[in-house]
């Protein structure tokens, strides 16, 4: 009976793992084959990968899209880490009743569906375009600004600050550090893991964001990676090998972030809920 159960467990887990991995395998294999081979259902790696790459770079401006996505994600991540950590720190270290009320109100914004605010946001940036074209519609700043601060990230930093040894602040005060100095010199260096986890979450979300860039960006030279992939995916006579190559390339940054910082990633995701 027990042996049967263990075998059952393994069969189930192997099946689950196979289903989870199969689309990735298919993507990688297809990226090395011609479109015709992919349609035939070839499941063996081919030798067409470099041809797919040269096809891709000569027919589609994926380079620009990669640079745009990198600009957006890196700026968003840096700004949000600074602003959200300042806030999380402020809410926890300078705790007061009034601030706790403000904090609970901020948390409500997590319940706001993006679909409900995207039209007013679009109008806001359309109006902004006539005053300050550099941050209005069809600019990367327009993509970045509304996504920089999320209540989730503030919550995440506040939760982590609860574990922060506050004696360190007292010691720093005696050394004559200003309040901002304490944050920069004492708090930020000790919270490296929290910053790492928060950075990964924000970077991935920003790199993969689709709906808001789709609304705010118009010209092809401002396109981000998800917009490009979506466009390739909806073409009438798709070159499967080339599209899969594009997806592989677009996944490399997040895959690198994931594999090198897997521990932080999982800790970051679940840590905030504990």
């Amino acid at each position, binding site marked *: 009976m027990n042996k049967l159960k263990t075998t059952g467990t393994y069969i189930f887990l192997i099946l689950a793992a196979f289903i989870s991995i199969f689309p990735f395998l298919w993507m990688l294999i297809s990226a090395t084959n011609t479109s015709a081979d992919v349609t035939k259902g070839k499941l063996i790696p081919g030798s067409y990968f470099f041809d797919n790459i040269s096809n891709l770079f000569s027919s589609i401006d994926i380079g620009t899209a990669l640079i745009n996505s990198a600009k957006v994600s890196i700026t968003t991540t840096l700004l949000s880490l600074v602003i959200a950590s300042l806030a999380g720190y402020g809410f926890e270290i300078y705790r007061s009743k009034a601030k706790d009320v403000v904090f609970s109100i901020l948390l409500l914004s997590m319940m706001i569906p993006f679909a409900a605010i995207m039209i007013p946001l679009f109008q806001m940036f359309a109006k902004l375009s006539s005053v300050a074209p550099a941050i209005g519609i069809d600019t990367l700043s327009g993509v970045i600004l509304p996504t920089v601060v999320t209540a989730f990230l*503030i919550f995440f930093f506040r939760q982590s600050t609860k574990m922060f040894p506050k004696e360190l602040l007292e010691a720093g005060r005696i050394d004559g550090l200003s309040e901002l100095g304490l944050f920069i010199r004492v708090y930020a260096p000790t919270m490296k893991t929290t910053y790492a986890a928060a950075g990964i979450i924000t970077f991935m979300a920003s790199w993969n964001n689709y709906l808001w860039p789709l609304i705010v960006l118009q010209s092809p030279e401002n396109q981000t990676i998800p917009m490009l992939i979506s466009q390739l995916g909806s073409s009438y006579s798709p070159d499967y090998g080339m599209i899969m190559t594009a997806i592989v390339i677009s996944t490399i940054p997040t895959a690198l972030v994931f594999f090198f910082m897997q521990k932080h990633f999982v800790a970051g995701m679940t840590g905030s809920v504990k």
Partner: protein
Amino acid sequence: MKTEVRRTSIRGSSIRTKANLTGWLFISLAVIMIVIFYFYPMLQALLLSFKSGTGMNLDYVGIDNYKRLFSDKTFTTALTNTFIYLIVQVPVMIILALFLSVLLNSRQLKFRGFFRTAIFLPAVTSLVAYSVIFKYLFATDGMINKLFMSIQLIQTPIEWITDPFWAKVTIIIAITWRWTGYNMIFYLSALQNIDQSIYEAARIDGASATRQFFGITIPLLKPIILFTSITSTIGTLQLFDEVVNITQGGPGNATLSISHYIYNLSFKYTSDFGYAATVSYSIVVIIIILAFLQFKLAGDKK
């Protein structure tokens, strides 16, 4: 030492006011940005929902949009579709994730790390990228049909994308694939925090594995199950990337989600921001009701 204490207590109140002010400075930027980019648009959307017109030329029309909402067949379809996704997908995914996490939590299991990483892997892919991959995999002449036919599971190819019923199934399979591992990680980390001695005691008392699961694991995981079911509900109600990239809402409007409909109303058809805002407020109302219900359901039995 004594004088030091007294001095701070005398100056205490002024220090506290100063500290309080510093605190507000720390949080100010984030608060301002959340207000500008979340709460203010939320209010604007409410005002918009009473206006109508094309593009930026909008006039107040009272509750006309709300009247239109109730007779709008496309809205009803989008709402029904979204609820089908919600009612079928969220429970299936949560049960699957719970089951997997309990299996993976067993200490005797070999290759735990491999299984965990493999099952979690879908959670790091971009929604657009995996949607495009699924679109091709589930094409009528795609890999899934080829695989199923080669193992004699089906005789004729299933029209995963082009049949109204199977298209919904495809969307549900896709979301489940993407998010099961994500939710599993939450359960797994909660399971690791449960004191093993509780299970020891239950075993000594002769409780079966099933009894242990329903008597110990489920009640202890309740807060995290509540959390994941609320986030999954909100996520499903906002479903957009998958529907747009796998089926484009089709065939007909068989897979259209509410977010996709709002997008179409604002940016694809002759844009009517006012009516789109009215539709978007329906999601807000639904989220509030569902979150309230879920809290009630979980809270009552505390």
